[in-house]
């Protein structure tokens, strides 16, 4: 009896001790990040949410008067059109990224062999540095006096330079250029995980390559496809630099409007409401994509 009491006491004691450490550990490990997120992520977002319901004065000061004007302006024809353009461009970019990225990822996964690491780094490396300068180079290539135009003019294929700059087309090219790696990497990861025995089985059972691709490979890489689409669509929709540099004032995306209101016009309530609507749109799309794409996509993402 004595020993069992001791055991109970001991157990009770250790349990208590554990609990005490436990209660100190959570604040120690989770405190800093909680502080960072609540002060520098949630608070700023809540503040712009608050400001988006206020009025802007003549000199950029904030008038503390409740209004729904900013929000209704976002939904109105002017800004609403820009939102639609952005959604359309992001969607288009996503599709092109899949069309370009899928064969690339498939090639690396199936035929990469020993050069796999090199081939992957060759996709990642250009996206690492000099983001601005690379976009500028794209302008140098595609611009009205750019390389392609001078080349075609010299050949006599065209008599007037093609107007590529400041069109939705060049903005889309820039977006694909910037975000393509984010499509290829998850696609490659899911293609790597593909069991070759399944492909052999499909061939043995008489499926031709086209049928095999659509009935076996594509469904099995759905997770990678959704993960890649999330990684491309989300940053594309909120992009500002690509439309700013390549679209000029002719092709505007929501990012341009937000940046303009905050940094040029100095209209904080208008900028805030645009930013909040953009964030809300993104979160909604992300929520739907994860709900639709399910666990497999999430696993690829995190």
């Amino acid at each position, binding site marked *: 009896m004595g020993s069992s009491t001791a055991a109970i006491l001991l157990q009770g004691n250790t349990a208590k001790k554990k609990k005490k450490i436990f209660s100190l*550990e959570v604040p120690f*490990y*989770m405190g*800093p*990040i909680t502080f*960072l*997120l609540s002060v*520098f*992520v949630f*608070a*700023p977002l809540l*503040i712009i949410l608050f*400001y988006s319901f206020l009025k802007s004065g003549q000199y950029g000061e904030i008038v503390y008067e409740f209004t729904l004007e900013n929000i209704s302006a976002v939904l109105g024809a002017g800004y609403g059109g820009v939102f639609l353009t952005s959604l359309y461009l992001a969607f288009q970019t996503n599709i092109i990224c899949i069309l*370009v990225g899928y*064969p*690339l990822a498939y*090639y*690396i996964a*199936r*035929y990469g062999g020993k050069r796999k*690491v090199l081939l992957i780094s*060759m*996709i990642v*490396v*250009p996206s*690492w*540095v*000099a*983001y*601005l*300068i*690379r*976009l*500028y*180079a794209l302008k*140098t*290539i595609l*611009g009205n006096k750019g*390389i392609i135009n*001078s080349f075609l003019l010299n050949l006599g294929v065209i008599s007037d330079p093609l107007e590529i700059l400041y069109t939705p087309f060049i903005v889309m090219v820039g977006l694909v*250029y910037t975000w*393509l790696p984010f499509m290829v990497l998850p696609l490659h990861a899911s293609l790597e995980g593909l069991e070759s025995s399944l492909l052999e089985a499909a061939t043995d059972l008489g499926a031709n*390559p086209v049928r095999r691709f659509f009935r076996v490979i594509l469904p099995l890489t759905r997770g990678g496809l959704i993960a890649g689409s999330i990684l491309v669509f989300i*940053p594309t*929709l*909120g992009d*500002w*630099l690509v439309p700013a540099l390549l679209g000029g004032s002719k092709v505007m995306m929501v*990012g341009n409007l*937000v*940046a303009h209101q*905050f940094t040029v016009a100095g209209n*904080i309530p208008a*900028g*805030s409401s645009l*930013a909040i609507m*953009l*964030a809300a749109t*993104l979160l909604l799309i992300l929520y739907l994509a994860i709900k639709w794409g399910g666990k497999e996509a999430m696993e690829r993402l*995190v």
Partner: protein
Amino acid sequence: MKRKKLAPKILAGLSFLAYFFLWAPVLVIIVFSFSANRYGVAWDGFTMKWYGALFQNEAVKEALIRSLIIASVTVVVSTLLGTITAYGLYKLHFRGKRFLRTSILLPIIMPGVVTGGALLVFFTRLIHIPLGYTSIIIAHIVFSTPLAVFVVLGRMQRIDWAWEEAAMDLGANRFRTFLRVTGPLLMPAIMASAVLIFPWSFDDFVITYFVAGIGTTTLPIYIFSQMRFGATPVINTIGAIFVAVTIMALFLQRAIEKKNKAF
């Protein structure tokens, strides 16, 4: 039989085009950094003078030093914070863990204009932090820490935790265990997140543009301001050097990895 051989060839061709697309602007930067054309947009014969001009350029030097300072501080703080957070997320169970985990994704998901705009308003209207180094570094830590958290967390799911248990059983306390056993085990992931965060912070334009204020010109902001006045060949030289440094860093990293594997 013939079709079987055709498919890889078509794929290889398509892949080559994709690579060409990704690398063409990089090649243009490198080639034109040696071109005598004074706008840096065409080939007018070979010259090294833009590199000379670059090394004489005080504004570039100052901006470079600023960017290096910001990226270094960001890397140190973010990886430290990210490692602590990842450790807690992996080891501890507490209320609101799921919410916290999802919240950590928020700075990655939010577009730069939203994060930048919100922080700008927050700094200038609410807590009155003067725009400059402090505001830039805080902003960079905000968007870099989540990366470190997820890179380290990914590694934690693969390491052998028996080492840690052994250390604790042998009488080391948690702190000592972390310092001597768990920390070194996580080192590759911590280094990987640093390698990821450094260029991310160094190259960031959008968020920095919002919170930099006047006077704290980082290198990307300098480049942007130069571009607005039209192309200058000096920008091409900066880009070419960036590319060269990145490729060298990659080879160095690969060499270190190989050496580690040999052990």
